[in-house]
């Protein structure tokens, strides 16, 4: 049994009085101990929704309308709020895009770290303080002792995100869910933070769900990859394999559209159009209006995820070589 097993997860939001729209439309994923999974998609593809649904944090008026999220065999969606709080922030931690959202601006770093610790552990002040300093050192924050009394606004963006990571690691979680952890940061800081997350996950055997729109980051950090489009997973598999030979036309299109793939001054490959809003999905395969390979069948019904790809006409390695 896998450590985390998400089965057929649906998230729905009400539209009008009787109608609902689905933001997630049946997502499956498994995560083993220490495994690093990348979830890639454009804004509105449902990737953040997936993270929130896993922790049963979908805000009103949305709801998980179907599916299970099994963590070590226990369905998180059935647990009472008190029990799930024991898991959230303890055994499954989250890192968000903007550290200022996670950190309370009026409390010192130390207070916030100790608060997290005390919520989940019975621990003396002295031990807690020592542990906090140890974690700050682990995330390479210079002069960790004095930083405990600092307030979030006194730190730079990179250091703040390091503090958030230190808080996420405080309780030795089994899974870290990182939602665009470096999008708000500069490239050099992104490299520092991602290198740090990668190192910490490897050293502590922590599993990672990395949600991002950046294929480069995913290729650097994760072993497994899931590409989402309009609330569904369209391709999943080992990261290397998908990056080297994507089989879903959307995955292939995303990769080909990257400027590093085109010669200088040449025309980039471009996927026409844009992702449909969840309120107005096309019939059949949701990607077919933008797809170069769509056939009559694609207009009819939506393809299921078979062998890691949800496409009636997946690109074989040969077809990919030709285009």
């Amino acid at each position: 049994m896998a450590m985390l097993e998400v089965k057929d997860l649906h998230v729905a939001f009400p539209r009008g009085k009787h109608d609902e729209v689905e933001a997630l439309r049946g997502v499956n994923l498994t995560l083993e101990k220490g495994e690093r999974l990348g979830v890639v998609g454009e804004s509105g593809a449902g990737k953040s929704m997936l993270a929130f649904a896993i922790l049963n944090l979908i805000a009103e008026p949305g709801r998980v309308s179907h599916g299970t999220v099994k963590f070590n065999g226990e369905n998180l969606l059935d647990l009472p709020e008190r029990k799930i709080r024991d898991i959230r922030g303890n055994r499954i931690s989250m890192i968000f895009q903007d550290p200022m959202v996670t950190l309370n601006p009026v409390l010192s770093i130390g207070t916030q770290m100790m608060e997290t610790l005390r919520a989940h552990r019975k621990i003396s002040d002295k031990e807690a303080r020592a542990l906090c300093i140890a974690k700050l050192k682990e995330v390479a924050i210079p002069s960790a002792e004095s930083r405990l009394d600092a307030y979030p606004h006194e730190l730079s963006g990179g250091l703040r995100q390091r503090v958030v990571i230190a808080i996420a690691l405080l309780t030795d979680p089994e899974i870290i869910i990182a939602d665009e952890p470096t999008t708000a940061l500069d490239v050099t800081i992104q490299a520092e933070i991602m290198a740090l997350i990668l190192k910490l996950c490897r050293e502590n055997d922590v599993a990672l769900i990395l949600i991002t729109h950046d294929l480069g980051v995913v290729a650097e950090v994760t072993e497994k990859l899931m590409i989402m489009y309009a609330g569904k997973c369209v391709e999943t598999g080992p990261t290397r394999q998908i990056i080297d030979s994507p089989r879903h036309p959307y995955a292939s299109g995303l990769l080909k559209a990257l400027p590093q793939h085109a010669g200088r001054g040449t025309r980039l490959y471009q996927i026409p159009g844009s992702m449909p809003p969840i309120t107005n999905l096309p019939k059949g395969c949701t990607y077919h209006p933008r797809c170069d390979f769509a056939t009559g069948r694609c207009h009819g019904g939506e393809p299921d995820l078979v062998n890691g790809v949800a496409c009636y006409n997946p690109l074989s390695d040969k077809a990919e070589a030709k285009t």
Partner: protein
Amino acid sequence: MITWRGFLRRFLADPVAIGAGIVLLVLVLMAVLAPLIAPQNPYDLLQLDIMDSEMPPSWRPGGDDRFLLGTDAQGRGVLSTIMYGTGISLIIGIGAVIVQGILGVTLGLIAGYKGGWIDSFLMRLADIQMSLSTLMIAIIVLALFQAAFDANVYADYAIFMLILIIGIAEWPKFARTVRSSVLGEKNKEYVDAARVIGLPPRKVMWGHILPNTLTPVLVISTIQVAEAIMTEAALSFLGLGMPVDRPSLGSLIRSGFEFVFSGQYWITFYPALVLIALILALNLLGDWLRDVLNPKLRRGED
């Protein structure tokens, strides 16, 4: 952004908003159409008969079918005076808000866009204005005005005086709201885009920034109308507002107040009821508008 259709749909989905809207509509129609539908014209002395004074509502013993809600001490039908009085209250409320709006929006826009010492100066001015209570200023000015001119002149100009005084006393509310919206808008890129083509500040301010700050202005306008009507009612109750022969809702309440203890409650009661309904409807609509127009509180589509 919200479309007119979305706006209407939200309105129709909210029973409180519909209720408040209907009450307001009825009162406004009643006031506007008063000359046509009122049973009598309370300003026309020829129609008044002192013999009709202090009659109870028509369903009570001693009531008269001509006066549904009874009559006051001068023999005016309470229903008719309410209809005309609501109109006067509304005119003062709306007029005062127009004065507040013009002053406040202009000064707020200038303070927010120009910044620097102009901003500091205007905002300190606003602070000073706000620290003086509206009622206090009104009482002083109106008392002086009443003392300086004879009753006829006062009666002719009372309505303008009330509009001006309440309007000037309350401009900082608009100015502050507009200023803070302007501060949020002026750093947006569409303002830079307008500056790149060299548009003069005047056009950037009025053409680009102002239309994007009007949402909160609309919200506070509704609530300020209610506030202005209240202020006027309070002044009239103190005898400093509208004269008895051109009564607003406030002066009607005052004119009947001395009879409350002798049993003629209706002279005060019905105008008070209408005043409460009017203020409540305006405030509920204002709250509803704020919720609908604030994108942070809005969920779902449009």
